[in-house]
């Protein structure tokens, strides 16, 4: 393993700001180990740095895992899986694509992705926001949940794959379907399968046969529209104006207790 180089941190910048350069290669020519990058991030956080910029990121995983300070992290390049997992507070902006499990079980904070974010984005998220300019893969927003003031939000500019919002127990998913032709649905199959809380809004075509177990379509009401417009405004503040127009479809659970009556408790 290559030695930890102190020159990774640009000490010329003010103490509240740090640049971590991840472009280095190890002795085998591979991108440097995620442990080195994450160690630098941990050190910067513990030293009270408020703005961290990562450059040359090349698939390093677990970036900003469980960081619980309200700091800003800018990522140039392609962060690997589990970006911002378990995090509670940071604002992360990715200038590139994110991979799988972005925001895994995050408690609060924001992740802005100026590209695509793939499978299982926002898994078990319980607070904070994720904005994705491009498309997402399958099982996005799975088992999101809310409690009291904490409610997670995911906004996807393009499309989402199958099992969007599976097991969803709270929060909001908004799919804008930008640049998707009108005759094509911006979401896949089994939408909201096992959903027992929360709301999914989709702009564009959604057929009833795309819904999963326990999900139903409902008309968008004024409160929903207010929330949708707020989220679109926020989306546009990150990515510029959104081009598509069209009506929103709302997917909600049949019940907060979908499996009541499924069981028999008689002692045998």
């Amino acid at each position, binding site marked *: 393993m290559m030695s930890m180089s102190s020159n990774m941190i640009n000490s010329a910048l003010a103490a509240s700001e740090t640049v971590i350069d991840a472009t280095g290669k190890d002795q085998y020519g591979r991108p440097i180990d*995620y*442990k080195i990058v*994450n160690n630098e991030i*941990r050190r910067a956080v513990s030293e009270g740095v408020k703005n961290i910029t990562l450059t040359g990121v090349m698939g390093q*995983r*677990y970036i900003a*895992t*469980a*960081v*619980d300070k309200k700091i800003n992290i800018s990522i140039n390049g392609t962060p690997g*899986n*589990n970006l911002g*997992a*378990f*995090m*509670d507070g940071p604002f992360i902006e990715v200038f590139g694509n994110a991979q*799988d*499990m972005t925001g*895994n*079980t995050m*408690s609060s904070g924001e992740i802005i992705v100026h590209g695509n974010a793939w499978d*299982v984005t926002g*898994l*078990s998220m*319980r607070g904070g926001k994720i904005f994705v300019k491009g498309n997402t893969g399958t*099982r996005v927003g*799975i*088992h999101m*949940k*809310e*409690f009291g003031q*904490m409610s997670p939000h995911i906004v996807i500019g393009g499309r989402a794959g199958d099992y969007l919002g*599976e*097991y969803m*127990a*709270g929060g909001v998913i908004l799919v804008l379907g930008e640049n998707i032709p009108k005759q094509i649905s911006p979401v896949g199959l089994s939408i909201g399968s*096992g959903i*027992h*809380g929360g709301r999914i809004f989709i702009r564009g075509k959604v057929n009833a046969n795309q819904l999963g177990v326990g999900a139903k379509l409902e008309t968008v009401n004024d409160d929903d529209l207010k929330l949708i417009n707020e989220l679109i405004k926020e989306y546009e503040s990150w990515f510029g104006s959104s081009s598509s127009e069209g009506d929103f479809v709302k997917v909600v659970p049949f019940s*907060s*207790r*979908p*499996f*009541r*009556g*499924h*069981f*028999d*408790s*008689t*002692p*045998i």
Partner: protein
Amino acid sequence: MNSDMWKVPDRFRPVISSLCITCKKCIKECSYDVLEFNNGAIHAKHGCVACQRCVEMCPQDAIEIQRVPETMAPHGTYTERHRRAILSQANSGGVLLSSCGTDIPYNSIFDDLLLDAAQVTNPAIDPLRETVETKTYLGSRNGSLRLSSEGSFAVKPGCGIMMDMPVMLGHVSLGAVSYNTQKALFMAARRLNILAGTGEGGLHRDFREFAPHLNSEVASGRFGVNPDFLKDVASIEIKIGQGAKPGHGGHLPGEKVSDLISETRMIPLGTDALSPYPHHDIYSIEDLEQLIATLKEAVNYEHPVGVKIAAVHNIAAIASGAVRAGADFITLDGFRGGTGSTPRIIRDHAGIPIEAAVAVVDKRLTEEGLRNRVTLCAGGSIRSSADMIKMIALGADVVGVCTAALIAMGCRLCQSCHLGKCSWGIATQKPDLVSRMDPELGATRVVRLLSAWNEELKEILGAMGIDSVESLVGNRDRLRYIGPNPRIADIMGIKHAGEGWG
């Protein structure tokens, strides 16, 4: 026939003797609403689960729970149990639900194993006068040494947790059990200097003080998992499966999601708390490696991260994969393990015995040169210190105990946890019932039980001439098989009684 719901007769009936002074305490104590007072006497209605609360609390010892004799025509194939299940499901159309470990009397392999003792050629040790060590580590204890250019060396400490006995209290979540019950278990763990599992329901803020003695659980629902929860505790366990319900997620019914539970799990009041069947970020060993790495990053490599898997057919290969994925400890849970709620079909029919699982995992890891990387924990139906000791000899470093601890606290194994009406204040969230569990008393009784087991462990170690429990781990040559199936003994690597050493 007036109804489409036919009778499934009761199995138990409280019988009140003439000693009764009609103080009506039993009526108050019965949370299943079985007893009533009329015409000057206490009478039993329908629905007794044999929890024994009225028996224990009756000041006159006037109550006895009787087994209702089987009244259907005897049949060896269609036993009354089968017929009751058929009738009940024809009534409900539902999946049969139960709790605790399976009540089917499968043969226990523990009962087919005998321990060795020292005679002549290897002297026995008297544990009352000589030291017999029972301290055990979870996770790596050594860390690493590094020489510097000046010749001195730097030590990177291991992240292992030292426990005073090779026992962990198993995972029971707040939700499955009451606040007072979880508190009692945590207090007991702290006094015994061992670890207790938090279960998957997160950690209530009042219980932060116990964090250094807690093994936190990251299960598929991720309830209550946040940075604090991960960083404060002694160790982190990814729960893939549970012996009582391998391959099944969790399902805490909305009735049990009270204010307290909703706050700790961070979910809305009264909704079902559903844990997905798999972790949706883990579909392979490579994915498991990523969650282990994420958790290690989350705690800066300062706490051991383990994986709990139910004992299933391919357990040795799966355990090997989990170690290669970076697990510091593996917890195996046998098919007889307990639960607060599970479909009967899984509880009674899925998985393999923990005895076989531990032996084959220990063998496999040893053969592959992986055994020294990992602490092997095993639980699921440890009824006595004898089971605990045999489990260690079969290959476990640490033994998980849970149902026995709950029995010490009052549980009578009536298998009605899923009804949420536990009369002993254990598996319930009803405030009047929860208050029946005194955490101090509960903790004291668990401490007494496990201290006694640890003394018995020392007795048997001494009798075997072993001065440290670590020397018994995986020492299958000190076990002999006396059961009906030598094939299982072969698979477990255990000789038959009568075969000597070497």
